């Protein structure tokens, strides 16, 4: 076993750290949360020049050809700096759908402009029941001649308002008992007539939308993967994206500690640093445990994905653990920092919100524990 990043990964991570420290300080994070668009085009282009858009994309499609694990090094830095924006939707969620399910023509069409930073993706998945379960997918795609007619409403679609292409999960076939069959994915141009996008307002300031499809015509060529077999792709992307989200959490957890621990050393009350009080020390010790375990759980799952080993159980384990651990860690940080941490101007609140958003997206702890139980053949 080896718990360390490779030299190249460390360089990538260090570069990302420096870049984001400069480009994405916390005032930019606050600004983007208020901004309607929610990201900076300029910074996006710089990220594209650093090859971050194509980090996992094979070189033949103008990508960097890196591994999933490489990407987690980037994501953890994005989490550290609480970076919001369409990166996760485009590169992780959308990108993984394309890489997993698209044919060569589709890849050649979609991926190079993504890598150049010219095209944004997202995935339109969840509907009104608010879950990632297959039974929640009701949006219909009906074959009419050479086209499919899409009807339905998707919710919580990340950065749909700026996306060029959406991967849409639709129901084409009969439901089976487990609801796994009959789901088909399409790549849809967001400028297609019949699509309307309503922005939602979220606690963490990340951008999500409701996307309505009314008789949206999509060519057969835009079918992604196999007809009626889309759930397999979605399930795999769900688990991989959940691991990617945990990589973000690693960074956020680290940053929360990097705020609370020095605060505890510097802040004096009752004639000594509050960090000299055993209760505060134990809070910090517990934070350290959450942080380390979250890190290794996520890296292990990411490594397994990179190595093409079975990763389903490890992925759900890490999302279940991370969802609880990150939230609890930030809560302890708040308890250590006290009143100051409750202020809008103090950065810890950004991580408080990020922790909850990261916990809820892509399946919360209960959801993934249930998947773990399934993996355990219970």
């Amino acid at each position: 076993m080896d718990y360390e990043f490779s030299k190249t990964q460390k360089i990538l991570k260090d570069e990302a750290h420096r870049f984001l420290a400069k480009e994405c300080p916390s005032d930019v994070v606050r600004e983007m949360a208020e901004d309607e668009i929610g990201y900076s085009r300029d910074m996006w282009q710089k990220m594209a020049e650093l090859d971050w858009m194509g980090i996992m994309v094979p070189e033949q499609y103008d990508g960097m050809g890196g591994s999933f694990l490489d990407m987690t090094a980037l994501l953890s830095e994005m989490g550290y700096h609480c970076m919001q924006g369409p990166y996760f939707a485009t590169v992780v969620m959308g990108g993984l759908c394309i890489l997993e399910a698209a044919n060569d023509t589709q890849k050649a069409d979609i991926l190079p402009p993504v890598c150049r930073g010219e095209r944004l993706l997202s995935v339109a998945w969840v509907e009104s029941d608010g879950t990632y379960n297959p039974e929640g997918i009701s949006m219909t795609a009906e074959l009419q001649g050479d086209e499919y007619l899409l009807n339905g409403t998707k919710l919580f679609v990340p950065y749909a308002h700026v996306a060029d292409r959406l991967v849409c999960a639709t129901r084409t076939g009969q439901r089976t008992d487990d609801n796994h069959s009959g789901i088909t994915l399409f790549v849809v141009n967001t400028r297609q007539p019949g699509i309307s996008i309503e922005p939602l307002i979220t606690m963490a300031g990340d951008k999500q939308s409701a996307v309505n499809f009314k008789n949206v015509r999509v060519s057969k060529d835009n079918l992604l993967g196999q007809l009626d077999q889309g759930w397999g792709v979605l399930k795999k992307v769900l688990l991989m994206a959940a691991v990617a989200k945990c990589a973000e959490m690693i960074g956020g957890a680290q940053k929360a500690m990097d705020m609370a621990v020095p605060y505890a050393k510097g802040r004096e009350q009752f004639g000594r640093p509050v960090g000299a009080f055993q209760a505060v020390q134990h809070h910090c010790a517990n934070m350290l445990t959450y942080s380390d375990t979250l890190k290794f759980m996520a890296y292990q799952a990411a490594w397994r994905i990179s190595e093409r080993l079975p990763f389903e159980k490890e992925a759900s384990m890490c999302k279940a653990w991370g969802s609880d651990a990150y939230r609890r860690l930030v809560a302890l940080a708040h308890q250590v920092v006290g009143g100051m941490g409750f202020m809008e101007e103090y950065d810890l609140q950004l991580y408080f919100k990020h922790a909850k958003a990261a916990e809820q997206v892509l399946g919360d702890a209960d959801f993934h524990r249930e998947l773990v139980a399934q993996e355990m053949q219970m």
Partner: protein
Amino acid sequence: MDFEFAPQEQAVLKEVRAFLKSEITPELKAESLAIGYCYGGELGRKFVHKFAANRWLVPNWPEKYGGMGASAMLTFAIKEELAYTMPLIFVAAHMAGPTILHFGSEEIKKEWLLPIARGEVEFALGYTEPWAGSDLSALKIDAVGQGDHFLLNGQKTFNTHTHVADYHWLATITDPDAKRYQNMSMMIVDLKTPGITIRPMITMAGWQTNEVFYDNVKVPKECLVGDLNQGFYYLMAALDYERMFPLGHYRRLFDEIVQYTRDTQVNGQPLSRDPLIRQKMAQLSIELEANKLIFFRLAHIIDKGKIPNYETSMQKLFATELAQKIANTGMDVLGLYAQLKKGSQHAALQGQIEHHYRWSVVETIYAGTSEIQRNIMALRGLKLPSK
């Protein structure tokens, strides 16, 4: 033993409930929410004048001071009822007032208690300073006696009510050379006095608290509460009253979450049928019940003529940790919908949950952190050694 309110208490509570139902308007609720449930808004004052005219603001005060000589039990029950319907936090009536009643001179009682009881004046807490949070004995604000007044210089922080209140319930240092606990005095300062500057600080719940700067502020000596240099004890007493935490507001939120689980179908079944959700909701309702019992215990102790000891800290700790659990469980139960803010399309329960979730962070910090409460329970309640 008896775990129901007495018939006469129930009768008053019935009246209170009817009053709240008829008098609380959406506009009043909106104002109250906008200022973080501090008492002091325009509509709030109107409402409270009417409410207090029934002597419901401080029912357990003597009649001559504006109360009805009722039990602390009734007083607590009305507080809880109001908190359930529309929370309003009263510094003058519920924190400073009881302290004045206990420690104040007859003059100061006469001057302040009746207006407080009628809801005519509101105070703002003036304790915390940048270097004195958990450790309030480390205050620095200077109050130098000069003839008929004190001259005040210094800085307060996290003084939440100051922008809507009338007076500052202010802890000052009147004898900087005296040892800790013997150097502090409590004063009631008109917030409009020249030399006071209030600077807003915004919390992560979106509400305003304040820094308050005192720059050569002249405060008449009549504003002193109780004895000079005994303020630390008054402050501690007022803190104890602040800690008696009516959880009604979170209880209402909980009831709304439960109703949401009954009303919301997922995969053809109401959320309330989900065994995990059932367990979580049941557990919260159990803890709400436990909190109810240790909340009204405080009233029971006071009605027996005793002063609550560790019991106040226990209830503050229990209630505030429960408040956070309720908000967090609400986030769990509403799932992706929970993150949508008030005013967003598709927001559930008017975005209340995410707001409470952000707000609830402060519960285990203000008025003494959970760590401080546990210290008090161990040292005062169990007499564990401090060294």
